[in-house]
């Protein structure tokens, strides 16, 4: 069986903007939509994807042992209990950084591509060795950014690097969107960010306290499928769009429906 595997790099440049959370939620969501999916933690120095997926106690081997041929790939893959379509290939340890080369990443991803329809690579922050290794193995990319100057600036730098590496397509996910702040023009708008970065918008994720709660538990929001979580809805929409479903973007300005929200919208009306 030959799979037309999509190898997607999830990166941001700046740390702490939500790469790992997006990787975990997209992984669960794609898997639950029936696509065999692997998530690969390319952050060998500071791994966290295992923790967000609640798989930290089930790791025996890592990509390192697979590359050294001390174990088989299927021994290193950690299958998610509630969502068996999803597997995690855990990172090696920090020592691995010294010897891991772009060719090694390509090798790991090639192995994963034989079994999975989607391979999501959780890229480390920064633009150094870890980033270069992850890029070498990727075909397309999702840039995660927040509507904040520092995150957008770093995203721009990463987009430039992805372009020179011929990664295509590169799509944008705007994370931690606060509709109220956007409406009062105290936060960069969606158009501001898409204009500046000149990328197609794959989706936006609304700010949601439930994200922290789900990390505490090690259960991604999309796993619980909580319909009352705005972020879960956003993640699931993004997964759908990746699979080619036609799902309209959420309009953050329509998120509130009270009198106050209506007044706020009136204040936003462009007069000239």
């Amino acid at each position, binding site marked *: 069986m030959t799979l037309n595997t999509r190898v997607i790099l999830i990166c941001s440049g700046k740390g702490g903007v939500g790469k790992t959370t997006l990787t975990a939620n997209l992984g669960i969501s794609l898997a639950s939509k029936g696509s065999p999916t692997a998530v690969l933690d390319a952050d060998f120095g500071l791994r966290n994807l295992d923790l967000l997926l609640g798989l930290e106690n089930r790791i025996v081997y890592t990509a390192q042992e697979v590359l050294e041929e001390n174990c088989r790939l299927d021994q290193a893959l950690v299958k998610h209990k509630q969502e068996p379509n999803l597997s995690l290939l855990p990172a090696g340890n920090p020592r691995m950084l010294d010897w891991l080369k772009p060719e090694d990443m390509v090798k790991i991803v090639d192995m994963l591509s034989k079994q999975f329809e989607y391979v999501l690579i959780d890229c480390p922050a920064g633009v150094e060795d870890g980033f270069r290794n992850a890029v070498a193995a990727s075909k397309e990319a999702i840039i995660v950014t927040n509507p904040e100057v520092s995150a957008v600036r770093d995203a721009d730098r990463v987009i430039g690097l992805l372009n*020179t590496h011929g990664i295509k397509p590169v799509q944008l996910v705007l994370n931690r969107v606060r509709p109220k702040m956007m409406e009062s023009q105290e936060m960069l708008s969606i158009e501001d960010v898409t204009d500046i970065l000149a990328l197609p918008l794959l989706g936006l994720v609304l700010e949601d306290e439930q994200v922290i709660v789900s990390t505490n538990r090690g259960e991604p929001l999309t796993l619980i499928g909580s319909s009352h979580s705005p972020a879960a809805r956003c993640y699931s929409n993004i997964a759908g769009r990746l699979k080619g479903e036609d799902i309209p973007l959420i309009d953050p300005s329509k998120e509130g429906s009270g009198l106050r929200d209506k007044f706020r919208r009136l*204040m936003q009306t*462009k007069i000239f």
Partner: protein
Amino acid sequence: MTLRDILNKLLGRHPASASKARERLQLVLAHDRTDLSPDLLEQMREEILNVVAKYVEIDLEGGAVSLETEDRMTALVANLPIKRTLSGEIQIKEQTKKETVSSSIEEATE
């Protein structure tokens, strides 16, 4: 301009911060993308002015060279007010006529 902007102006309040963020980002990205330091830009500005000065007399004070960015394309825009051409034949009205020389530089590649 929105109702909020007008209200802010009337009340003498600070404009909302998003527009400030946008301006600052556009400026910093124009420089990031070309990888040109202010020193290099200044050096380039002088050289461009010298080349143009060979052909036309320009207002050296009023000349400006800047980087502008749109859609991930960064353009070098030089605004050089021409006093007169050096051939002396054609007189161009001082200060009023401005010539814009712009050339696009492909986004800086690594």
